[in-house]
C-alpha cells in the first residue's frame, strides 16, 4: 500500500494543481473584466463628479438668488407689517368712529323718543288749550249774562235813586211846606193884640195847612204802597169787560161832560196784569181827558190795544186842550205838577201815579200832545 497510495496521491495532487491553474486563469479573466468594469465605473464617476460640480454651481447660484429673494421678502414683510399696523390703527379708529356712531344713534333715538314725548305733551297741551278756550267761551257767556244782569240792576238802581230823590224832594217841599206854615201861623197866634180879622185869617191858614199836611202824608202812603204792592198777584183781564166796568162806574161823569168813550181791543183782547193798577191807569187817564177837555167840543176818548213785538201796547187818545210839551217836558209825570191849575181841581198826583204803576210792572209810558188838538198816551207793558 503506501506506494500505490503515494502515486495516486501525486496524481490527485497533479490533477488538483492542474485544476487550480485553470481556476487561476479563470480568476485572472474575471479580474480583467472586473478591472475594465472599475475603469468604466471610474470614468462614470468622473463624469458624475463634473456634473455634480456643475450642479453645485447651479445650486450656489440658486442659493444666492434665494438669499436675494429672502432679503426682498424681509423688506416686503416689513412693508406688510407696517401696512398691517396702519390697518390695525385704522380699524381701531373705525371702531371708535363706529362707537361714536352707535352713541350718536342712541342719542338720536333718545332724542326721537323725547320728541315723541314732547309731541304728545304738545298734543295734550293743545287739548288743554282747547278745553280752556271752551271754558273761556262759557266764562265769557257767563260774564255777558252777568253784565246784562248788572245793567238791569243798574237801570233798576237808577230808577230807585230817582225815586229816592223824588222822595227827598217831597219831604223837603211838599211835607215841609205846611209845617213851615204852621210854625209861622202858631207864632202869630201867640202874639197879643192881634186884630180879629187877622186872627181869623191865621186860623183859616192853620186849618188849610194842617189839612194839606194830612193830605201829603196820605199821598206819600199811597205812593209807597205802589212800590210795596208789586207782588199782588197778576190776573187775566179782558180789556172789553174791564173798560165797560169802568165806564159804568163813572157814567155820571161821562154824561155830565157829554163825552164818548170808544175802544177797540181786537188786536190784543186780554192781558195778565195787576188789576188794581190797570184800574188806576184807566181811571186817571180817562178822568184827565174829561178834566182837560176843550170847552166847546164834546170829549172823545179812544182806547186801543196793540200787539207790537210780542208786547201789549195800550193807546189812550183824546181831543182835549193838549199840553205844550216844550215847556212841560218831563214834568208832565212829576208829582204835584200841574199845567192847567185853573181848569180843574187836582193836586198833580194822577199822572205821577200812572207812571209809577206802569213802571213798577216793568212797563213804559210816553206822551205826545198838540195844544188845542189832543193828547195821546202810549203804555207799553212788559209781557
Amino acid at each position, binding site marked *: 500500500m503506501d506506494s500505490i497510495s503515494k502515486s495516486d496521491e501525486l496524481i490527485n495532487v497533479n490533477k488538483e494543481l492542474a485544476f487550480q491553474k485553470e481556476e487561476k486563469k479563470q480568476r485572472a479573466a474575471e479580474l480583467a473584466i472586473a478591472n475594465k468594469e472599475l475603469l468604466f465605473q471610474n470614468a462614470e464617476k468622473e463624469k458624475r463628479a463634473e456634473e455634480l460640480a456643475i450642479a453645485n454651481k447651479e445650486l450656489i447660484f440658486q442659493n444666492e438668488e434665494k438669499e436675494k429673494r429672502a432679503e426682498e421678502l424681509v423688506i416686503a414683510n416689513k412693508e406688510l407689517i407696517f401696512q398691517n399696523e396702519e390697518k390695525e390703527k385704522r380699524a381701531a379708529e373705525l371702531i371708535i368712529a363706529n362707537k361714536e356712531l352707535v352713541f350718536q344713534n342712541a342719542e338720536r333715538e333718545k332724542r326721537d323718543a323725547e320728541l315723541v314725548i314732547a309731541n304728545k305733551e304738545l298734543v295734550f297741551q293743545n287739548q288743554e288749550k282747547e278745553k280752556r278756550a271752551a271754558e273761556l267761551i262759557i266764562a265769557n257767556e257767563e260774564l255777558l249774562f252777568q253784565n246784562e244782569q248788572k245793567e238791569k240792576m243798574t237801570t233798576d238802581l237808577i230808577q230807585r235813586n230817582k225815586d229816592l230823590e223824588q222822595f227827598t224832594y217831597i219831604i*223837603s*217841599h211838599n211835607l215841609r211846606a205846611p209845617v213851615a206854615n204852621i210854625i209861622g201861623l202858631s*207864632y*202869630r197866634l201867640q202874639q197879643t193884640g192881634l186884630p180879629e180879622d187877622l186872627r181869623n185869617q191865621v186860623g183859616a191858614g192853620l186849618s188849610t195847612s194842617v189839612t194839606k199836611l194830612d193830605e201829603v202824608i196820605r199821598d206819600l202812603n199811597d205812593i209807597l204802597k205802589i212800590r210795596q204792592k208789586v207782588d199782588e198777584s197778576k190776573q187775566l183781564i179782558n180789556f172789553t169787560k174791564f173798560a165797560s166796568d169802568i165806564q159804568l162806574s163813572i157814567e155820571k161823569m161821562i154824561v155830565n161832560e157829554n163825552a164818548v168813550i170808544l175802544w177797540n181791543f181786537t188786536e190784543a183782547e186780554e192781558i195778565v196784569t195787576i188789576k188794581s193798577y190797570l184800574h188806576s191807569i184807566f181811571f186817571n187817564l180817562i178822568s184827565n181827558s174829561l178834566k182837560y177837555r176843550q170847552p166847546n167840543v164834546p170829549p172823545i176818548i179812544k182806547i186801543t190795544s196793540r200787539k207790537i213785538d210780542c208786547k201789549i201796547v195800550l193807546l189812550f187818545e183824546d181831543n182835549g186842550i193838549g199840553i205844550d210839551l216844550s215847556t212841560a217836558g218831563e214834568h208832565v209825570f212829576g208829582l204835584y205838577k200841574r199845567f192847567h191849575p185853573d181848569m180843574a181841581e187836582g193836586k198833580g198826583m194822577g199822572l205821577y201815579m200812572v207812571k209809577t204803576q206802569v213802571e213798577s210792572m216793568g212797563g213804559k209810558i210816553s206822551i205826545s200832545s198838540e195844544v188845542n188838538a189832543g193828547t195821546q198816551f202810549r203804555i207799553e207793558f212788559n209781557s
Partner: protein
Amino acid sequence: MTPLRFIIVDNDPVNNLLCRLAIKDAVADADILAFSDPLKAFQYISEHDESNNRVNILLLDINMPVWSGWDFVDHFDKLDNKIKSRFKIYMLSSSIDNNDKQRAVENKNVVDYIEKPLTEEKVFSLL
C-alpha cells in the same frame, strides 16, 4: 224916600199871608206885591219900567206847579241887565235839603236862600 218894594212869588196863599205879616213887622211902610202865579210875576218884572232906581226884593218859592223857582230864575237870566239889576232874588222855600240851599247860593241871579217861614228877623237880615 221911596218905600222898599217886596215881591212875593208863591202859589201858597198861607205863605203869602205870613210873608206880608213878617215884612210889615220889619218895615212898616213896605210896598208889598204878591203873585201866586210865577208866569204873571215874570210878565210883571219883564215889563218893569220904573223911572226911579228902586231895588225890589223878590222872594221866590221853589216848588210851584207850572214853573218852579228854578225855571223862573232861568228865564230871569235872559232878561235885560238893566231890569235884572233892579231885582234882588231870594229863594224862599220850605226845603230843608242842603242841595237846594247850595243850588241857590251857586246861582248868580240868586242872592241867598231863606228857609220858610219868613220872620221879622229874616226880613231884617235882607236889608
